[in-house]
């Protein structure tokens, strides 16, 4: 028998999220398939086309996961950036940035409920229906891609996930694991199909499919070549297969969000271990990156670079004659075609469709819920929001608030279809800057501003006399500055105009001002909220 030292101090906690749960959770937060759509969009205006060449520079984005792994090990509490930014820098900064994050992530959650029909289930069923020649599926798919149906289905999914949230964290994680596994099976099938079919095989499958579809391209003897020729005739020149700066920003999307378990850190097993956090955060980033490489390598090889870029151009600027007027749908259909067998087609298409939509739901819901709960515990928002139902043992009012706000945002998304892409990019840059920029500063300053915490933390390590976390934090701040510059410098991303700029960064200012207003009101009520920020929450 192993002799263990006497180590237990008191009855403790069994934290619910295992290393595997958090790894999957973090991988889910940073969907690598979404990059396909972004690539198809970016390749129409960039000066190069080799997305994979951006990977060496994109590796710098791992600094984000490393910063979070270290900060979470120091503050293993639910609430993520809000907890350590407010405790190390200042509550107004912590709340300001976190408010912006929560605002945009709630919007993104609602946006995803909407997208489940428009770019998930709808196109998915439509594509499967076409490939396996099933008119019922085609019609259901088409019906789903109408605003009201999307709203109704989105609302239903909103209800379902709110109910799952009432089942507790473990249930949410189980649901997330299930969605991730289905998604990964589909993606593995899609990649394997691409690898096995090869370029000539794919051309044959595509031409055969397009011939049966008919239309401008279908009537051509070689629809595959016709797509390349039509794009050229339309004035498009395929960029050389070289590196282009915007791809750095795109590729990092597969990696940079893989720290989201920070928001449920109080429920994660051994969250005070830097090593475990690195495995679940940086490890998930690496996992996603490997799939980006596989996905793009085989996409370039099997579809052919010229065809891929021409198809991207046509779906963006001249979709007439194509079965799907959207690059993501068209590419998803191509993956489905490569899979050939109806069951494999279904898995591949559903996997890829889920990857850009449903996969975010649990991650976003828990993130938003934990942050609102943390604000309420600090008395920045009504204490009702931190009331926990003894029956459901979940923060009832927080869950219901998220549900209601999502419904409102769903309505906004449906009511303003022209603002679709503006909302989409705002829900990427806004939250990215909100939750990735300030933690870099917090990390860099932690050893100096909170020496008491740093000295006893598991991250106390120095290189040439400079704390390691300061160095990584500085790298992260530099990288995030570059990311923002890239998105603003390329007007095609659509966020350099005043309104998008306000939407992306203005919410931070709104949150910052809100903090001081709340502080003033609380003081008049006789409540000193500063006291809460002198302490670190117990879990």
């Amino acid at each position, binding site marked *: 028998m*192993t002799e263990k030292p006497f*180590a*237990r101090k*008191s009855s*403790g*906690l*069994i934290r619910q999220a295992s290393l595997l749960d958090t790894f999957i959770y973090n991988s889910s937060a940073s969907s690598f398939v979404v990059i396909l759509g972004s690539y198809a969009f970016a390749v129409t205006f960039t000066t190069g086309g080799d997305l994979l060449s951006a990977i060496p520079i994109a590796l710098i984005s791992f600094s984000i996961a490393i910063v979070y792994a270290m900060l979470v090990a120091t503050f293993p509490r639910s609430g993520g950036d809000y907890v350590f930014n407010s405790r190390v820098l200042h509550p107004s900064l912590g709340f300001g940035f976190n408010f912006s994050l929560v605002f945009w992530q709630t919007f993104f959650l609602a946006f995803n409920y909407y997208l489940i029909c428009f770019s998930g289930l709808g196109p998915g069923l439509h594509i499967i229906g076409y490939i396996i020649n099933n008119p019922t599926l085609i019609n259901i798919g088409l019906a789903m891609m109408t605003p009201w149906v999307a709203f109704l289905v989105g609302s239903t999914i909103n209800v379902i996930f709110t109910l799952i949230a009432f089942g507790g964290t473990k249930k949410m994680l189980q649901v997330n694991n299930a969605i991730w596994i289905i998604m990964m099976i589909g993606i593995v099938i899609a990649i394997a199909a691409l690898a096995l079919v090869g370029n000539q095989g794919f051309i044959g499958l595509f031409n055969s499919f397009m011939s049966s579809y008919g239309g401008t391209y279908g009537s051509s003897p070689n629809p595959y070549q016709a797509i390349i020729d039509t794009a050229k005739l339309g004035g498009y020149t395929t960029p050389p297969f070289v590196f282009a700066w915007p791809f750095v920003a795109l590729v990092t999307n597969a990696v940079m969000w893989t720290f989201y378990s920070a928001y449920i850190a109080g429920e994660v097993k051994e969250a005070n271990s830097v090593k475990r956090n690195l495995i679940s955060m940086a490890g998930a980033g690496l996992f996603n990156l490997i799939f980006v490489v596989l996905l793009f390598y085989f996409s370039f090889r099997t579809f052919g670079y010229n065809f891929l870029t021409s198809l991207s151009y046509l779906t963006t600027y001249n979709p007439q004659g194509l079965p799907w007027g959207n690059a993501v749908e068209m590419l998803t259909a191509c993956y489905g075609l490569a899979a050939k067998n109806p069951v494999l087609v279904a898995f591949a298409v559903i996997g890829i469709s889920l990857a850009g939509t449903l996969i975010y739901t649990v991650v976003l819901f828990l993130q938003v819920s934990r942050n609102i709960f943390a604000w309420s515990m600090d008395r920045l928002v009504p204490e009702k929001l931190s009331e*926990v139902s*003894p029956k459901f043992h979940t923060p009832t009012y927080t869950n219901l608030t998220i549900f209601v706000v999502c419904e409102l945002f769903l309505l906004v998304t449906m009511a303003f279809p022209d603002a679709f892409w503006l909302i989409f990019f705002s829900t990427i840059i806004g939250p990215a800057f909100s939750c990735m920029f300030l933690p870099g500063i917090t990390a860099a300053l932690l050893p100096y501003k909170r020496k008491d915490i740093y000295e006893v933390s598991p991250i106390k390590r120095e290189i040439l006399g400079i704390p390691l976390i300061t160095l990584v934090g500085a790298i992260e701040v530099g990288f995030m500055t570059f990311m923002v510059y890239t998105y603003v410098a390329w007007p095609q991303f659509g966020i350099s105009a005043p309104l998008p700029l306000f939407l992306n960064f203005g919410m931070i200012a709104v949150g910052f001002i809100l903090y001081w207003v709340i502080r003033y009101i609380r003081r008049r009520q006789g409540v000193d909220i500063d006291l809460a920020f002198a302490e670190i929450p117990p*879990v």
Partner: protein
Amino acid sequence: MRIPLEKEDEKLMGEALRIVDEAKKRGIVLRLMGGIAVIIHTDDSSLYTRLTTPGSDGGKSRDIDMVTYSSQSSKVDKLFNDLSYNSDKLVMAYFGENRFMYHHPKDIYYVDVFFEKLHFSHDMNLGSKKGRGRLELDYPTLTLADLILGKLQIHEINEKDIRDLIILIKGHSLSDDDVEESINLERIASVLSNDWGFWYDAESNLNKVLKSTEKYRIEGLLSEEEFDDLSTKVQKISIYINKIPKSKDWLKRAKEGSSKKWWNDVEELVR
């Protein structure tokens, strides 16, 4: 007759019993476990005093541990609210599937209320719901067998837990049924025969009990008779546990042995 306690412990004990009593009046099945339950089951004040002498990091309880059925969680919450306790919202929100926590109105101590499926280093199931579980078999605490299982499941056991085990084993007879004030070996053995990891740690902890009794005998904290009685009982428990046929899951897991992690990590609430 209960052992004499220091003023603080007496207050804590009084409060624990008041809560359980109030629960009983309201039809709530709420039972004590942990340090306070051990004290309630201890008649030998001499042994208790010897093993919990100042400086020995002995038997002082700083919290109250209780168990109820999850189906009664809403009633329990109302009970504590009525008694002016403050619920720990963070614990309730993040760990409410398994436990609630309540702070004393003056924050002097806290009460942990666990539900029937205890998740610590190893899992222990105390039944499904009111009338169908093991909570009703004793009052105001869990049965002695379940209290002992509660100690045996600890992967990283501390000296206080070992002393609690010594006190419980020394003070009670062994039986093969839930007889009042005796330790039901059948219950202990049946739980351990289904869970190899639990059995492994229980065996390890029983060995530690044996070693500690030897140490306490040398230090003069236990008499020769007490030592002999304890050694005999611990060996009997171990023999009983090992002679019971094991489940298929147990046998399957046993093949992997300690090459694979066999316990759940238990972490502190505040680090």
